[in-house]
Structure formats: C-alpha cells, structure tokens
C-alpha cells in the first residue's frame, strides 16, 4: 500500500505515476491522525496548511515538476522544532501558545523539498525524559499497545478497564514522532536525540531511528536540551527512508556554526554483498545490568548473522561507558540551567501575573512555566556551575566525556567499522509501571545504551529487530564512525532485510476509527 510503502521505491513512484495524489495522501494521513487521536502522538495538527501544501505539491506533479522524492510526502515534526505560524510548545506551559516567527533549518529544508507538514508531535517537556510521559499534554501511547500482536501475546485481561491500563509507553522523548510513524499517520518524522531520545522510542515503537553525527544536520531552530549533544533525529519505517531524509537534511548551515563546512552528498544505499572487509564490534560493557534475556539472545543472534555472512565479529571494550550516565547528568543539567535562563517571561512565552518586582515576576513565571523535572535539572545544573563546584563537577565531567569518546576512537582505530548493541534494556513498559519511578531514575536507566554515542557525537541507528514475548518491538543499535552514515546505513539496511521485522497490525485502530482503516485498505494498491 502506498500508505505503508517505502518512499523512494513505492510512494514517490505512485505519486509520479498519478496513482495517488498528494492531496489524497495528506487527507488519508489526516483522517488517520484523527482516528488515532487516543495515541496522543500529536500536539498540534496543522490540517489547513498541510492541505494547502499538498495542493501546491499536486500542482507541481501536474506540471511534471515535482521537487524530488519528498514532494507531497506527509511528515511530522517533534514539537521542539520551530515552525513558522504553527505553535511550538515543547510540551511546556512555558511555551504553550507560542508561535515562532521562523522555521528551523530542518523544517525549512523539508518544506523546500515539497514535504507536507502534518503537525507537531508530543514529547516530554523540553525533551527531558525517556517515556514521553512528562509533557503538559499527557503521555503518548504506544501504537503497539493496540496491535493484534500485543493483544495476542500479552496476558489476556478480561475487563476493558484492565485493557485500558495495559497500554505501554512509547519511550522518549521523541515518543510522539515514533508513534506517528509507527501508526502510519505520517511517512517520516523528525525527533531530536540528546541521550537516545530518537533511538529509544524508535526501538519501543518498532521504527527506524537515526541519530546522525553531531554537526551533520543543523540544530538551528531546534529548541536545545544540551547543545553539545543535541542532533535532529530521523524516524522512518525503513532504513532506505532514513537515508532519503538524511540526504535532504544534512550539510552546512550558516546559521549553525557547529555544522560541517562541506556540503553533504546524498546517497542511495547499496546492497551489502562483500562482508570480507566488514568488522562488527560487540562492546562487552553493553551487556548491562537489567538487560532482558530475550534482548541479549537477540543481540547474539544478530552477531551470528553477521558472522555467518562472512563478517568479522569481535568483542571490544568501551571501559568508560559505564560513567556515561553520571557524566551526562552533570553536563546535561548544566547546559539545561543555562539554556533555560532565557525563559523569563519578558520576550515570549508564559508570563506570571505576579508583578511586585521584576525578580518576583521571573520567579513566578518560571515556577508556573516549568514542570518539576525541568526545575530539578535547572537547580542541579546551577549547582554544578557554581564557582566552587565547577572544577569538581563540570570540568571533571568534561574530562570523563573525553575518555568516553576516546574509547570509541580506539575501537574504531583498531579496525572495527560498526558497533552492534541493544538499543534498550527491555521492551516497552506499561504506563502504570513506568510511572512508578521518577523521571530521573527512568532517564538514567533508559539512556544507558544510547547515550555514549551522543557523548562522542557518533552516528547511531535503531533497527527494529523482532517482537518480544509480549508482542512488543525490540530493536538493536548500530553505532558508526563519525560522518560514516553511508556505511552505517548500508549495514543497517542489510540487517533490516535479514530480520524481516513484522508490520504492526492495528486492530484497535480499526475499532477506534470507525473503519478508516478499512477504507484505506480498499483504496490501497500495491
């Protein structure tokens, strides 16, 4: 079906051949967004502008002058990217109702290539979290909670109330984007990835989640969490689509001084055939406490796949990775404290009614505008940056970060091309279970396998691999060398083909949406 197809080979071709129009495609996505509203994946749906963009795209196709593969393709964007004219909230009271006057560079690039922006997706407030449960618009529900696969395998509950409480989280913080892609409401979505925020929900929602090399994609317009680690993330249904998106987004941006100077040459992924020169590293430290036995088994099965194909598979060591979480905690909170200082209620965003003095207005604004998680991080970050603490915490954390990054350099220098690791410790937790722990504990646990790549700025990708015993997606992560996305994606693509991850069967959606899915099916083609 075009709606579930691959961008380059299927959807784009269908659009070109006129088998479906951009407007039809957009309308179907909008309808599906409505029927999956209970997932809470979107904060804002930009129906009107999306249809207008689709109409413009349609004109281009009619003239035979589409702008490229992305022309007419419905996409969604995490709500921490600025979008001109469409609310950008960061799922925070601080920015509720905030309409940015400009587009983030990545958003602009997508629009310039004809993509249709459906809306803005849900997240943890200011992307601080690993569940997509801590935003002011409520938690995102994992579409797999409503899949036939999960229903069949999870312990059957007799009462509908229990069913209601049985839904699992998407992971985060880009959970809205992952859920949007996973539930077919869009073809691709932008997330952001600071400690795993794209790969983690991708793993839980059974989609591809790419965190590119730091500096490859512009951060201009991405509301920062940790500037030195943030990268725009790409969520798609397959590795090929991720390569398409990467090609349309990567390259120098004069508005972001940390982007590479050179232009980026988009690539199509070849089929991997020669394994004789491929060396896959298995970092032993990723066999972390709490790693579920089924993921461990999957991981070693994946290693065997490569071995059997003829690749060299070696165990490697990244000894400093275990300090990654505590190190991240210091660096992240310090930058958060700094980045959040601008939200004082003066120029934009929420402003408290308290007016006794400028200071009391600041204090009330920030108390009312930020949730406990954000305020907690600001507090600890400011503590680490105090003159008497700076050397003890911040400088030390920077040094540890260097050690963590150097571990990777050494491993890659030893001849390893790609590292293979799990993305998460286990499959997605039910919401009721997840919220038993606080955000900080959760983030620390959930980022453990993804975060080191951010510390080192390396490209990493989650590839959906299999369903767990409970019928939920499980993914594995590939980490590549800096700016070697092509190699990374080529290997990921081969792996993706081997594992044949099953497509989600959204039973529940069918029930919820009064047959939109049925309509889809009848209108689809292959």
């Amino acid at each position, binding site marked *: 079906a075009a709606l579930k197809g691959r961008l380059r080979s299927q959807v784009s071709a269908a659009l070109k051949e006129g088998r479906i129009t951009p407007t039809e495609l957009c309308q179907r996505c909008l309808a599906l967004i409505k029927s999956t509203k209970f997932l809470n994946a979107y904060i804002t749906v930009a129906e009107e502008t999306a249809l207008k963009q689709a109409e413009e795209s349609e004109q281009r196709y009619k003239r035979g002058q589409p702008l490229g593969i992305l022309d007419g393709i419905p996409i969604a964007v995490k709500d921490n*990217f*600025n979008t001109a004219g469409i609310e*950008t909230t*960061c799922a925070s009271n601080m*920015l509720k109702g905030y309409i*940015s*006057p*400009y587009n*983030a560079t990545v958003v602009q690039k997508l629009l310039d290539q004809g993509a249709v922006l459906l809306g803005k997706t849900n997240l943890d407030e200011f992307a601080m979290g690993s569940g997509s449960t801590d935003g002011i618009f409520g938690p995102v529900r994992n579409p797999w909670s409503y899949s036939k696969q999960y229903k069949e395998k999870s312990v059957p509950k007799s009462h509908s109330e229990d069913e209601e409480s049985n839904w699992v989280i998407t992971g985060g913080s880009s959970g809205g984007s992952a859920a949007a892609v996973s539930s077919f409401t869009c073809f691709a979505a932008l997330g952001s990835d600071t400690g795993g925020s794209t790969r983690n929900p991708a793993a839980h929602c059974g989609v591809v989640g790419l965190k590119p090399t730091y500096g490859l994609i512009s*951060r*201009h*317009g*991405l*509301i*920062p969490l*940790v*500037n*030195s680690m943030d990268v725009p993330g790409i969520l798609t249904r397959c590795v090929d689509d991720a390569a398409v998106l990467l090609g349309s987004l990567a390259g120098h941006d*004069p*508005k*972001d*001084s*940390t982007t590479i*100077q050179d232009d980026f040459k988009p690539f199509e992924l070849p089929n991997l055939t020669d394994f004789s020169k491929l060396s896959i590293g298995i970092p032993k430290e990723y066999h972390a406490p709490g790693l579920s036995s089924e993921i461990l088994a999957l991981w070693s099965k994946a290693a065997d796949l490569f071995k059997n194909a003829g690749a060299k598979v070696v165990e490697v060591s990244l000894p400093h990775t275990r300090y990654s979480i505590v190190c991240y905690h210091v660096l992240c909170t*310090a*930058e958060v*404290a*700094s980045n*959040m*200082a*601008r*939200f*004082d209620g*003066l*120029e*934009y965003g929420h402003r408290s009614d308290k007016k006794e003095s*400028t*200071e009391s207005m*600041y204090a009330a604004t920030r108390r009312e505008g930020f949730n406990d998680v954000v305020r907690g991080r600001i507090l600890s970050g*400011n503590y680490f*940056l*105090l*003159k008497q603490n*700076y050397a003890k915490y*911040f400088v030390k954390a920077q040094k540890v970060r260097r050690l963590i990054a150097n571990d990777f350099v050494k491993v890659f220098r030893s001849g390893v091309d790609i590292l293979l690791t799990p993305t998460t410790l286990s499959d997605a937790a039910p919401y009721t279970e997840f919220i038993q722990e606080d955000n900080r504990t959760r983030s620390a646990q959930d980022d453990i396998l993804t975060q080191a790549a951010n510390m080192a700025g390396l490209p990493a990708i989650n590839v959906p691999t299999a369903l767990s015993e409970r019928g939920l997606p499980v993914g594995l992560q590939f980490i590549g060398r800096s700016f070697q996305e092509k190699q990374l994606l080529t290997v990921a693509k081969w792996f993706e083909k081997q594992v044949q991850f099953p497509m989600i069967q959204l039973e529940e959606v069918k029930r919820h949406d009064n047959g939109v899915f049925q309509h889809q099916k009848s209108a689809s083609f292959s």
Partner: protein
Amino acid sequence: MAARGCGGVWRRARQCGVGGPGSGPGPSPRGQRAVACNARGGAVPAGKSGLAPWIPVVGLEVHAQISSNSKLFSGSRVQFAAPPNSLVSFFDASLPGTLPVLNRRCVEAAVMTGLALNCSINKKSLFDRKHYFYADLPAGYQITQQRVPIAVNGSLSYSFCIDNKMSQMVTKTVRIKQIQLEQDSGKSLHDDTRSQTLVDLNRAGVGLMEVVMEPDMCCGEEAAAAVRELQLILQTLGSSQAVMAEGQLRVDANVSVHHPGEPYGVRTEVKNINSIRFLAKAVDYEIQRQIEELENGGTILNETRAFDSKLGCTVPMRDKEGKQDYRFMPEPNLPPLILYDTKSLPANMNHQQVINIDWIHERLPDLPSVKREKLVEQYGILPEHSFTLLNEDGLAEFFESVVKQTQMKAKKVIGWIVNDLLSYLKQHSLTVKESPVSSFLLADLLNLLEKKEISSTAAKQVFAELWKGEGKTPLEIVKEQKLELLQDQKELEQICQAVIDGQENE
C-alpha cells in the same frame, strides 16, 4: 608588583610625588587636584597613621563598542539612536532555537586592537557564557571570553604633562592584561512613576572589546591620559568610534590605596563615568575618600560605586542582587575561534573562512605615537605640539595641509594652529572640520605674513575677519582694511617726514 610604572606616593592625601624613572623632576603638589574635588572640603584630619604615605592603585576596565555594520553574533545593524527595538534579530531577542554566528569584522577589529596594544594574539580563543538575570539581557547570559580571550599581555604608553605645563611631558606605560570579545546588553529604562521598566534591545548583542588594564596607574590624571591614548588608538584603527558620550567607550575604574610595603588595599569599582574629564575627577575623589576613610579608622568595602558628575563624588550603587556567581560555562554553540598567521595558514583554506594575523598586522595604520614622532621629526615641532595636533580630530591633517601650501616654516605655522585656530575653535565649540577658516585660507594668510606684506598684528586682524566666513580672501581683507605693510621706502620717508613736520609746526 606594587603600582608598576607609578612612583606616586600620596602623603596624607595632600601631595602626590611624581618621581620614578623617566618622569619629571621632583615631587609636585599634584595631589592638590584630588583635594580640590573633595566635596566635603579640603580639611583632612590628622589620622592615626600620621605621616605614613599612601600609594593609590588604579586599574581600568574599558568597554569599547566595536565599529561594525552588524552585531557580534547576529546580522542586525548597529546604529546609535535608532528607534527602540528596531535593530533586533531573533537571536538578539533570544528566541528559542536561535544560535550565535560570529561576525568576522568584530574579530578583525579585536585583532587590530590587540596588535596596536602590543598584545599577543591567541591563535585559539574560546567563548563562555556568563549568567545573570536582567531585563536587558534576554538570554539570561552574556557570551564573553572568560577563559581564553583573543588577546593578552599587551601594553599601552601614554603621556601627560605635569601641572598643565606643556613643557613637562611624562610618558608612562600601563600593562594590558587582556582584550576579550563580548556582547553588549540592551538598555533598561525605568519609569518609576508608572513603576515599569522599558527594554530597548537595539544595543543587545553589539560587539564589545573589553580592554583590561593592570593596576599600574596612581591617579586620575594618569587614568585619563591612558584612556585618551586608547581612544585615539581605537579611532585611528577604526575598530571603535570610541565616543564616550554615545557610550561607545565605557570606563570602570578599580581603585585602592595602601601603605608602601603593604599589600594592596580593598578596592572599589567606580562606574558610571561618561567622560575622560570625569574619569580623572572620579578616580581622584575615590582615592581621597578612601584615604580619609582609612585615616579616620574606617574600612573600605569591596563595593561598586557610581560617579555623580553633578556632585563630583562617588556614591555606593544599590546592589540588589548581592554577591553574584556568574556560573561561567563554555558556549557550546561556538567552536573555538582559530586565527592563523602566514606560517600556520593552511594552503587550501578558503580565504573567507580564515583570519590571518600577519595580514592584519601589515595593514595597521600609523598609530598616534608613530604619527607624533613623524610630525616632530618632519616638521621640527615640539613633542607637546604633536600631542595637541593629534588630540583634535583632523587637526594634524589641517596643519600638514597648511604647511604644504605656505612658504612659512612649519615651526612657525604650528603657533598659528595651536594658538589661534585652536583657541577660536574652542571658543566657538567647533570641530576642525567645521572651521570657517580653511587650511587654504590660512596658508594664504600666512604667505602674506611670510612675504612681510602684513605685520603679524595685522595677520591676527585678518584671521579674525576670515573667521566670519564671508568668503573674502586674506588679500581682499588686507586691501579693504588697508593693512599692508609699506614696502616703498620713498612713501615711508614721506610719511615720516610728514609726521616730523607736524611735530615741528606745533
């Protein structure tokens, strides 16, 4: 090191010895000035310390606004007195998601200034965030260079005359600790009646060079002379317009006093100084105040004080925030600033992307000190006159132009420039460019004088006529007013004879 380059010792605040190597002769009552500007009157009670001398120590932090078309990290225009908030980019207003992009021109201006102040230029410098909450600081932090600034370890030589006597010039040197690039803040306007604060962000993000001078000065006069020289250098380089009245040059003075052989005293920081004249006054007042405070058994607080130009004194500034911890951290959105010299310049580098220190060095204009030397050498004028020529914008050029157009010796021309032209300009508060007497007209006049066609008294009369700016040439004025010197001997004899005859007839 105690007040290097400054031999000044104040005895009971009354006298300031000038001594020290290379300075003028013997002690002189320079401290009188400080006493004179003491708002509480001149009487200094005999303190417990009796006659123990005081050594004042003065260091300066100078903020010079960089003369550039656009701001340090954004494309907004830089313009003085534009309508409020008309020069504000998304970045300047700190809209979420915006990032700084370093302005090449600002870096070049800082490199030029660093080279002119004999600094070593750091080939790698870093940017930091300095945090504090203030209404005119939209991001909640200022981007500055706290750890590794762009230029360090320089020096500035400056001269001034003792007792206002042009003949007693003293030259001193102050060490430059560093020059750092940083963002200017916006402006807050407090409307107390309506109890509101209005914020203008036009200035927010304009590039500043903070020039930090070591505490090598010992009185207001030295501080003033150092800043004046810095101002001239900046204006010569074009790196800053450095007009204090427009806030392009802002000076904070750190002042302390101590006894010889003892460690430096507690220092105060004096802000709100908006002219060079007030700088001298503020520093001298503060020295005097501290000495009196200490001699009366009091203590000096490490505080920020503001200079009140109307009262001529410094007053404590209300510091609502108390002690600030600026929580410095590296600016993560700007890579290290890398500069090259010809040796280190990578071969295949795009010239638009690199700054070559040597290239800038080779193109530095003549600095004021060199210009003065050249003037003295070329025209044989007195060193102090070279200072006067450079102190007025365009005066040296005016002088040189006159010299070129007249047969009169430069040594004589300078008298007309510094005595006549300058005093007329001062009297009428005009700049050199606004002078109604052009260099051409003055040269014309001096030629008449040089050819002895008029007397020097008559020349002054003609000059006064020329000043009216009625478009007459000196020769026309001379003819009109019959001011010619008589060259014809016969005619002269006849006049003399007539006078004698007249006498005899009586």
